[in-house]
């Protein structure tokens, strides 16, 4: 397996949607390729960091204001 072929299957590997045979091939490639190993681990870390740190959060005051506006409009039947 070449690095390009590995990269094409990177998402499937991360999302755990590869067959057993394919997983064995990917693991075999990883054993001999530091670059792909780093790409895989740092891509996984990228996802994990974005998932665990909520960006663009709304301040509580704003949330309440918007919420009141929405509910007021809805009670009037929008």
């Amino acid at each position, binding site marked *: 397996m070449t690095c390009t072929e590995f990269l094409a299957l990177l998402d499937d590997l991360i999302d755990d949607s590869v067959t057993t045979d394919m997983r064995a091939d990917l693991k075999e490639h990883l054993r001999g390729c530091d670059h792909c190993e780093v790409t895989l681990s740092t891509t996984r870390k990228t996802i994990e960091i974005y998932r665990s740190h909520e960006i663009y959060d709304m301040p509580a005051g704003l949330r309440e204001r*918007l*919420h009141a506006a929405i509910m007021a409009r809805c009670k009037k039947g929008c």
Partner: protein
Amino acid sequence: MATIQPIAGELEPHPDVALVAQVRAGDVSAYDTLVRKYERQIFRIAQHITQNREDAEDVMQDAFLKAYEKLEQFQGNSKFYTWLVRIAVNESLMRLRKRRTGKMVSIDEDVETEEGSVPRDLADWAPDPEQNYTQSELHKILEKTIKGLPPGFKVVFELRDVQGLSTEDTAEALGLSIPAVKSRLLRARLQLRERLSRYFRRKKGAEK
């Protein structure tokens, strides 16, 4: 004694189905529950597309109001949240067009980028690299990093990887094909990884 057995393979109805039915029956507080459940996610999607805090606030409000008004049109073939995202994405794009004085902006525009198709920065990252930054610094880095991606990439990444939607639901919410979602997700992941490497790579001379 006969007991009622669930039909094999039958899926539990999504909790939103009952809430939507309650709203339709006139219970506004059930809509309140839906708003509170999804407001943060909708705000983030609007912020990703509009890149403007005021616009994102307006979009969030307009999207929830529009969804309430159109609830009768919601068929229930799709999930409520998928349907809501579609409304929010359309509202965001309209807001963006207004700002750009009518210039067409689309989520399904396939942006060919040189960057990210092949990983260039192959240095490994420090262990727990986020520990080297304060929460506030880290948030700035994450916002700055994702900001530069095309809108279609950002929203696909947000829905799939941050919010955990399936490829199928993401495709439906954005009106994209499944291969288009997959292609954008791979490029978004690789581009974000490449850009974050600048901050997280292991410093030379640092212990392994």
